[in-house]
């Protein structure tokens, strides 16, 4: 591999990692806050992409879709959390199972409403060109994705550490019962957290669409599989874990698939296995005390 090639692949890996971060951030948030591995996360991601398709078809505006999809998913999250998860508070495995059921239903409804054809979304005008870089041209959109990922990480970090809601979330992660005892409406907090997680998944659906496409099966591959991989590899439930996970998995998968072509299917799982065997709770995971 020439240096030019390495540089280009590094950019590919970074932009891929950025997409993974945007995709996984919602899952990480929900787990960190509510101890729920939301296995409907992939279905949310898929729904976001299909909503974006319709919005772009109706209005022609990708940016509008970037607003509409997260909003729609947030609404869905606000409905689903009290409906399905609230009564299972404390029964973590059950909450996971109910999200599997929800995912099956959502994916099927998407198929009924939008059909089962393979679709795609183009990058918005302005971001659909390519710029000259070392080694040739590189798509502007992928550079945008890197910038967006960084901005999202920074924004989430600021909210998490510097705002009241972030403080509440951090407190909730530590001890939700105590938080409730202190008079905080934990129902509302959990519902909004779940809604935010869903919104982030929907946002990922829009942003990733020009790269990953919009088709049946996207809820599992890349949706859920890649989010789980990033979140578990990075260390569950923390923002820095999600960042670390995407920074590792993005480039590692990109280089791995190209260098070890015959086992490309397995590369991402080999990464997971390797990390978990060396660090059983993920790169930045802390050992949680189970209540």
């Amino acid at each position: 591999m020439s240096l030019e090639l390495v540089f280009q692949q590094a950019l590919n890996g970074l932009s891929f990692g950025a997409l993974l971060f945007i995709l996984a951030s919602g899952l990480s948030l929900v787990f960190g806050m509510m101890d729920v591995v939301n296995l409907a996360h992939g279905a949310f991601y898929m729904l976001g992409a299909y909503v974006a398709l319709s919005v772009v078809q109706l209005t022609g505006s990708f940016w509008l879709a970037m607003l509409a999809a997260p909003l729609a998913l947030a609404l869905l999250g606000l409905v689903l959390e009290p409906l399905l998860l609230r009564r299972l508070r404390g029964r973590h495995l059950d909450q996971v199972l109910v999200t599997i059921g929800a995912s099956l239903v959502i994916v099927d409804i998407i198929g009924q409403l939008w059909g089962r054809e393979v679709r795609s979304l183009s990058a918005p005008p302005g971001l659909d060109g390519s710029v000259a870089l070392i080694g040739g041209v590189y798509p502007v959109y992928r550079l945008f994705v890197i910038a967006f990922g960084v901005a999202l990480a920074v924004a989430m970090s600021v909210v998490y550490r510097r705002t009241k809601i972030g403080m509440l979330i951090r407190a909730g992660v530590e001890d939700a019962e105590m938080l409730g005892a202190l008079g905080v409406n934990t129902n509302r907090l959990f519902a909004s957290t779940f809604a935010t997680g869903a919104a982030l998944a929907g946002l990922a659906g829009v942003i990733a669409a020009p790269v990953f496409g919009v088709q049946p099966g996207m809820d599992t591959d890349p949706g859920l599989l890649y989010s789980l991989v990033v979140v578990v590899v990075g260390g569950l439930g923390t923002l820095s874990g999600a960042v670390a996970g995407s920074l590792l998995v993005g480039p590692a998968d990109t280089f791995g698939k190209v260098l070890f072509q015959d086992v490309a299917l397995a590369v991402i799982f080999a990464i997971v296995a390797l990390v978990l065997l060396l660090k059983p709770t993920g790169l930045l995971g802390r050992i949680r005390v189970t209540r």
Partner: protein
Amino acid sequence: MRPLVRWALVAAAAVALVTFPYWSAPWESTRFATTLLRDALVLAIFALSLDLLVGRAGMPSLGHAAFFGAGAYAAGIAGQRLATDQLPVTLGAAALVAALLALVIGVLVVRSEGIFFLMLTLALAQIVFAIAFQWTAVTGGSNGLSGVGRPMLATVDFSSPDLMYVLVAITFVAAALLVWGLARSPYGRALIGVRENERRMRALGYDTARLRLSAFVLAGTIAGIAGALSAYSTRFVSAQDAGLGNSVRAFVTVLVGGAGTLGGPIAGSALVSLIERVVPSLLPVELRISEAILGLVFIAFVLFARQGMVGLGRQTWLRVRSR
């Protein structure tokens, strides 16, 4: 119910199950119900083995299909490469390969817990799937392994629909007896102990890692045998047999039926087979709601009947009895 009466009933049920194709022949001339029941029983064996992990030992594995697939491939490949169709050889190969694979993977996963255990088993199983999918020379690759031989025992050819069913049914009864016996044994209780409170078990002197590993290998071996039976049923092995979809299917079956009970995986297999095979043939293909139905059933069970169908059955029985 007196134990002797209960035993007699169970024995009668087992005999009826194994001889199903023969007494059902008058109204079941097309063998459709036989093959349906056969496939449901294969799933039941697979689910029983997973329940050992999920229900009894508290190890939620999402990679159990790796052993199912390994057993299926081993039976088919052994039959072809060793130029023999004798069941002891091919089933033996299936059990051996599945056990070895379960040992290798088990050693790696046994110290993980919860979501990490889940992800690790998933990841390692996906690696097995990838190997099955790409290693065309050995497994047939993405096109699958065709030409799986006829299952023979001495000179008896088990490949006819009726005899294949009998083979599967007998294996199912054996597996159910094994799991039932295990649950009552000190070993089974130790597994439950590890699930409930591992630290205390260790303090009591149990080698919890070895307990979990043995459960993992045992479960993997039984899954491998289920896989071999599946290979002989369809005379074909697909890479998907080792894939995530199959692992999830078994997981759902166990949970819906009722984890940690004997009847659970069995009831779950009946329900899942019903939804997968019978419902689609009754509904017009446009509606195609089998996935959504499964999802809703799942949600309903988790919300209202957490112990699964067996638990629901028990509650109803208690309520009826107390009238």
